C-alpha cells in the first residue's frame, strides 16, 4: 500500500468508515415516514425506468439508419388517458398517505410531556417545566411522547431532528408545536434548517435520548432551583397581574383559575379555546383578547417581557388549578416575593407562607 498517495489513502479510509447513506431511525414515526419515502423512491425508479426504456428503445428501433421514413401519428386518446390517470392515481395515493403521516407528526398525543424551546440568533434555548435550561442540546427520555412548544425571539428558525424525521419552524410571535417519541437511546443531530443569518450553520446541537432512570437523574442534576411555573408566579406578582386577576368578587380582570384549556367567550363574540398561544397573545396584545363582561383596561406587555418570561407566565397559568395558589401569591405581594423553599431561591428571608 505504500505506493498509494496518502491523500487517496485517507480518502479511501474515510470513505470506508465515515460514509453515511441513510440517517438512523430513532423515533416511533421514523419507520412510518421512511415507508412512504421508499414507496416514492420505488415509484420514481419505475417511472424513470419506463421513461429511459421508452427513449432508449425508440432511439434504437427508430433511428434513421433502421427506420428512414417516419410514420406520422396524431396521438392516441387511449394512451394519453393512460398516462394521465395512472400518474394521477399514484400521486393521489402519495397525497393521502403523506397527509395521514403529516397529521400524525403534527398532532401531539394528550399525554405528551411539554418542553419549551426558544430559538434566537444563534442558539436553541430549551426550557424544561421543572426549570432545567439547556443551550443547543435537548435531553429527552426514551419511549415517552415529548411535545415541544417552539417560539423564536427574533427571526425564523427551524428545529430539525433528522433521526426522528421531524422538523418545525420556530416563528417570531407565535407558538408552534411538534412532538416525537424517541425509541432508541443515543445522541442525534439537532439542526436549525431555516436560514437565520451569520452563524446559521453554528446553530446546531444534539438531542440526547436517555433511559427513564438516566433522564430522572439528569433532571435532578440539572435543576436551576425553580420550576417555570414558580418563575411565572414571581413574574405574575412583580408585574402586578394579580392586582386585577385575582379571585375577589370585585376583581377588574377575569380569574385565571382553571382557564387553561377552557372555552372562553370574548367581548367581540368569538369563542376560543385557551391554550399557550392564546395566553401569549392575551398578555402581549390584551385589547384584542378581552373576556366577555370585562372592560379593556389591561395594558400591553409587548416589549416588557422576554419570550422566556412569557413562557414562565403561561406555564404558571396552565398549572393554576385552584384559587388557593392565587390567594397565596396575592398575600405575598405585599411583602417581598418569596421563594418556594428551594435551595437556590433568591430571597430565603421572605419565608412568610403558612
Amino acid at each position: 500500500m505504500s505506493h498509494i498517495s496518502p491523500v487517496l489513502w485517507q480518502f479511501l479510509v474515510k470513505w470506508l468508515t465515515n460514509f453515511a447513506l441513510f440517517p438512523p431511525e430513532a423515533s416511533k414515526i421514523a419507520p412510518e415516514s421512511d415507508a412512504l419515502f421508499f414507496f416514492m423512491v420505488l415509484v420514481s425508479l419505475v417511472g424513470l425506468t419506463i421513461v429511459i426504456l421508452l427513449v432508449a428503445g425508440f432511439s434504437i428501433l427508430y433511428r434513421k439508419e433502421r427506420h428512414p421514413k417516419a410514420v406520422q401519428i396524431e396521438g392516441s386518446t387511449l394512451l394519453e388517458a393512460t398516462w394521465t390517470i395512472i400518474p394521477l392515481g399514484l400521486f393521489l395515493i402519495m397525497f393521502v398517505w403523506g397527509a395521514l403521516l403529516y397529521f400524525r407528526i403534527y398532532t401531539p398525543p394528550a399525554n405528551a410531556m411539554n418542553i419549551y424551546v426558544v430559538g434566537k440568533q444563534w442558539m436553541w434555548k430549551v426550557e424544561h417545566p421543572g426549570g432545567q435550561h439547556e443551550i443547543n442540546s435537548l435531553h429527552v427520555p426514551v419511549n415517552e411522547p415529548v411535545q415541544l412548544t417552539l417560539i423564536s425571539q427574533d427571526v425564523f428558525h427551524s428545529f430539525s431532528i433528522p433521526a426522528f424525521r421531524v422538523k418545525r419552524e420556530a416563528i417570531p410571535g407565535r407558538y408552534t408545536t411538534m412532538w416525537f417519541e424517541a425509541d432508541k437511546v443515543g445522541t442525534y443531530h439537532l439542526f436549525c434548517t431555516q436560514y437565520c443569518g451569520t452563524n446559521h450553520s453554528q446553530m446546531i446541537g444534539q438531542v440526547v435520548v436517555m433511559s427513564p432512570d438516566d433522564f430522572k437523574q439528569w433532571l435532578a442534576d440539572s435543576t436551576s432551583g425553580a420550576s417555570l411555573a414558580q418563575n411565572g408566579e414571581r413574574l405574575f406578582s412583580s408585574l402586578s397581574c394579580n392586582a386585577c386577576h385575582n379571585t375577589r368578587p370585585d376583581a377588574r380582570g377575569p380569574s385565571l383559575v382553571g382557564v387553561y384549556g377552557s372555552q372562553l367567550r370574548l367581548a367581540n363574540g368569538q369563542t376560543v379555546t385557551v391554550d399557550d398561544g392564546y395566553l401569549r397573545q392575551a398578555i402581549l396584545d390584551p385589547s384584542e383578547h378581552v373576556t366577555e363582561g370585562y372592560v379593556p383596561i389591561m395594558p400591553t406587555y409587548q416589549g416588557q417581557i422576554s419570550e422566556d418570561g412569557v413562557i414562565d407566565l403561561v406555564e404558571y397559568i396552565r398549572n393554576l388549578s385552584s384559587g388557593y395558589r392565587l390567594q397565596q401569591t396575592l398575600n405575598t405581594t405585599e411583602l417581598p416575593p418569596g421563594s418556594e423553599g428551594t435551595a437556590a431561591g433568591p430571597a430565603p428571608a421572605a419565608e412568610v407562607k403558612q
Partner: protein
Amino acid sequence: MSAATIVTLPDQSTARIPKMNFLTKENGLLSWLLTGDHKRIATLYLISITFFFFIGGALAGLIRLELLTPQSDLMAADTYNKVFTMHGIIMIFFFLVPSVPATLGNFLIPMMIGAKDLALPKVNLLSWYLYMAAGIIAIYAMMSGGVDTGWTFTTPLSTHYVNTHVITTGMAVFIAGFSSIFTGLNFIVTLHKMRCPGMTWFRLPLFCWANYAASILMVLGTPVLAITIVLVALERTIGIGVFDPAKGGDPLLFQHLFWFYSHPAVYIMILPGMGVISEVISTFSRKRVFGYTAVAFSSVAIAVFGFFVWAHHMFIMGISNYAALVFSLLTMLVAVPSAIKIFNWAFTLYNGSITFETPMLYAFGFMGLFTIGGMTGVFLGATGTDIHLTETYFIVAHFHFVMVGGMLMAFLSGIHFWWPKWTGRMYPEKISQLAAVVTFIGFNFTFFPQFILGVLGMPRRYAAYPPEFQVLNVFSTAGATILGVGYLLPILYLTWSLKYGAIAGNNPWQATGLEWQTQSPPLTENFIETPIMDHEAYDYEWLERKQAQEVASV
C-alpha cells in the same frame, strides 16, 4: 454510432451568408442600442444573460469549494452567506427567468407566427434596458458589500436583523421584475394580434404555447413580487410593521406573498424550456409532436394550477393542517401535466426516424433529469415526507434537477438548435456532442449526492457541516468542476463558429417551423412577403412537397 444525420447544408464552395440580414443591416453601437428589431434585442439579451450566468456560475464554484471541507475555512460564514445569496439572486432573476423567453422567445416568436416583429418593439427594448439597469444595480450591491438574506428575502431577517444591501438588491429585483412583465405582455399581445393568415391557435408551434403560458404567469405573478419587495423596503426604512408581530403584523404573510410569485416563477422558468424540447424532439424524429393538443393544454394547465400551490413551501411553518392538505392536493394535480408532457415526448419518438445531433442529446438529458426533478418534487409535495426533506439538500438537489438539469439543458438545446438560424453558421458537431455528454455526467455527479445528503438531514445554506457528510460533498464538488467544463466548452466553440462555422443555409435541420423557411440569419423584416400558414404545425410531408417543388422549379 454511425453518422446518420438530418443535417443538409448548402454547397460550401458556393454558399455565402446573405449580404443583407438583421446583423449587417446597420452598423455601429447606436444601431444596436436603439434597435427595435426583436432579433437584435434577443442578441443583446443573449450576451447579457450569458454574462450573468458566468457570474452566477463563479459564485456557485465558490460555494462548492467552501463545502469541500466540513469547516468554514475558505470564507467566513458571512461571506459564504453573501455568496449563496448572490448566486441565487443572479441565477434566478438575471438568468433563469429571462433565459429562454427573452432570448429564444424574443428571437423566435415573431418568426414562428409569420410576423415582422413583436407587437411593441419599443417596450421590448425598454425591457432590455430595465434588465441591464437591474443587473448593474445588483452587481453594485454585490461589489459594495453584498447582501446576506438568501434569495428569498425572508422577513424578519431581511427587515430587522441584517445591515447589508437589502434595499439596493431589492430594487434590482423590483426593476428586473418589470423587465419580465414587459416581455410577457409583449408576447401575449403579439400572439393574439400578429399571427399571419392561416396561423390558427392550434397551428402554433408548441414553443409559442409554452411561452404564452409563461407570459401569463409573468404578467399576473410578478406585480405581487414587486409589492412584496416594496413592503420589505418600507418595513426596513420606516417600519410600517406589516410583517412585524410586535406591531400586529404577520411574518408569515411575507412568505405567502413571496411564494405567490416565486412558485409560479419556477413555471416561468421551466415552461419555455419545455417549449424548446417540443420543437427539438419533433424535428429530430421527423414527427408531429404526439398529442399536440394535450401538450399545448398541459402548458396552460401548469400555468393555471401553478398559481394555487404556493403554500407547499410552508408546510412546516405552522399554517393550518387543513391548508396544508389543500395545497398538497393541488401540488399533486400540477405534477400531472408535467408527466403528460414527458410521455408525449417519449411517444413522439415512436415510429419516427431519429437522429442524434447535439440539440437532441440535450433534449434527452432534459427528459431524464426533469423526470427525476419532477418526481422528487412529489416527495416534497406530499406533506408527510416534506417535513423531513424540506430545508435540506434534498430540496437543493430537487430544485437544481428541475432548473439546471431541466431548464439549462433545454436552453442549451435551444441555443444549439437555433444557432444556425441566428448566426447563419453551424457549430462544430462532434465537440458539441461531447459537451452535451460532459454536462450530463457532470450534472449528475454534482447534484445526485445532494439528494442523499438531504435525506441524511444536511441543512441547506450551511457554511460548515458535520464531518460525516464530507464524502458526498467531495463528490458534489468534483462533479461541479466537470459541469463547469461542460458549460465553458459551448462558449468556446460557439464563438469559434461565428467566423469558422460551416454556412448553414435556410434550413439545416429540415425543420417545419416558419422561422426555418426564411434565410439565415433572417432579414430585419423576417420574411420577404407575409407567409401564409396553409398546413398544421410539424407537417413534415408539407415540407417534403415544398422542397420537391423548389427542386422542380429550378
